[in-house]
């Protein structure tokens, strides 16, 4: 129940903050969020990580969009710094808000009003980490056996082919594994 309430609070705040257009308010919200991050029951390193991740998540797109827009404004005599502050602060606010709530809320529990959805999320995310690790090993093995940047097209095609077939077959196996595991734990559908 707690997670569903948190979800509701989070969604409401998300929409509310999206509707704020004054950069003063948004900066205030940002300070509140930063304070909240430091109050979270986490190690210092993890708190810094949250802030860093939020920043980098928005940095690229934020700069790409707002910097040219503001710069053009300079040339045509239109002061667009309010816009610059507003859009970037709000983006940062929303992203930080999301990361903060993800730390205190269990998304699987929050979404378990639909049993199917919750199951799908848990199963897929746990296997995704495994798959990702295997993919990384494939890439590392390829790197370890080749001479660097000059790779023959033919070889890369073999490699890509193998990746696709391997993971497709693996996903079929995974499907069977999941089915059997679910059956043995008593899942039925009505």
């Amino acid at each position, binding site marked *: 129940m707690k997670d569903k309430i948190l979800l509701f609070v989070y969604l409401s705040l998300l929409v509310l903050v999206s509707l704020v257009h004054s950069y003063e308010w948004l900066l205030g919200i940002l300070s509140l969020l930063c304070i909240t991050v430091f109050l979270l029951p986490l190690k210092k*390193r993890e708190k810094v990580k949250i802030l860093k991740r939020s920043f980098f998540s928005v940095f690229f797109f934020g700069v790409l969009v707002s910097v040219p827009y503001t710069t053009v404004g300079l040339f045509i005599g239109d002061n667009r710094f309010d816009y610059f502050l507003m859009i970037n602060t709000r983006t940062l606010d929303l992203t930080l808000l999301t990361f903060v709530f993800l730390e205190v809320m269990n998304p699987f529990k929050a979404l378990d009003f639909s049993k199917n959805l919750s199951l799908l999320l848990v199963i897929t995310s746990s296997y995704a980490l495994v798959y990702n690790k*295997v993919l990384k*090993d494939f890439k590392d093995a*390829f790197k370890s056996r*080749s*001479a*660097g*940047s000059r790779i023959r097209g033919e070889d890369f095609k*073999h490699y890509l082919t193998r990746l696709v077939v391997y993971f497709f077959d693996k996903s079929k196996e995974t499907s069977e594994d999941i089915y059997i595991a679910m059956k043995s734990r008593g899942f039925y559908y009505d």
Partner: protein
Amino acid sequence: MIELKDISYSYEGEMVLKDISITIQEGEKVVLLGINGSGKTTLLKVINALIFPQKGVYFYCGVKIDKNKMKNRDFVKNFRKEVVLLFQNPDVMLFNPTVFDELAFSLRQLGFEDKEIKKRVLYWADKFELSPYLDKPPFKLSGGQKQKLCLACLLVLEPKVLLLDEPTANLDPRTTGWLVDFLYDLKTTTIITTHNLSLAGELGERLLVLGEDHTIIYDGRVEDFLKDEEKMLKAGLLHKHKHKHGEKEHTHYHLHDYL
């Protein structure tokens, strides 16, 4: 030959290797022991220049290995010929259409001539009993054969440093025995990881143990470590649980013998 000075590596905020300093001479046979998660695979990847540590320096034959050095194509070509890594999961190494192509792959990549390639491939295929499969796809082989094939793919290069990540983890006892024999006769510098204590003595003379704190907690002879209960406990390699000797039930520290 290999020199690691104060190497530290962390991934996504988690420490994986801490203040690792080791020197390995040419021809040494080193066993890297540690429980799962202690950082063994990561250390091998650092030595194979697949990942770069955030702190510390790695010297290979006196040359500092870092991202920049690994951008030098001539150096990389040579390095990848001399320092090779056998991955724990053999599937991730195999992707060529035939066993022959698989064995020839690295040789082709690193610029060997066709005649030389053919010679080496046939030699090693024969040595590893893979000759009947030369025109079959690699992934159709059995688990043990795949492992042999992966090893053969590395040995065709006649490397100077052989890094093996848990090579016996998926092998049956017979193939394990074959591997131990094979490695015994090899003159190459080897670093082999395992979490199997009883096998450690068979795989090398020098033992490096990675502790749960991600540092090297032992560097010395295998026999001496096996006598030191305290060190083994610290490494998480010894455990205690209820069991019976005959009719009496009790607990004490012990190992399980895997062979």
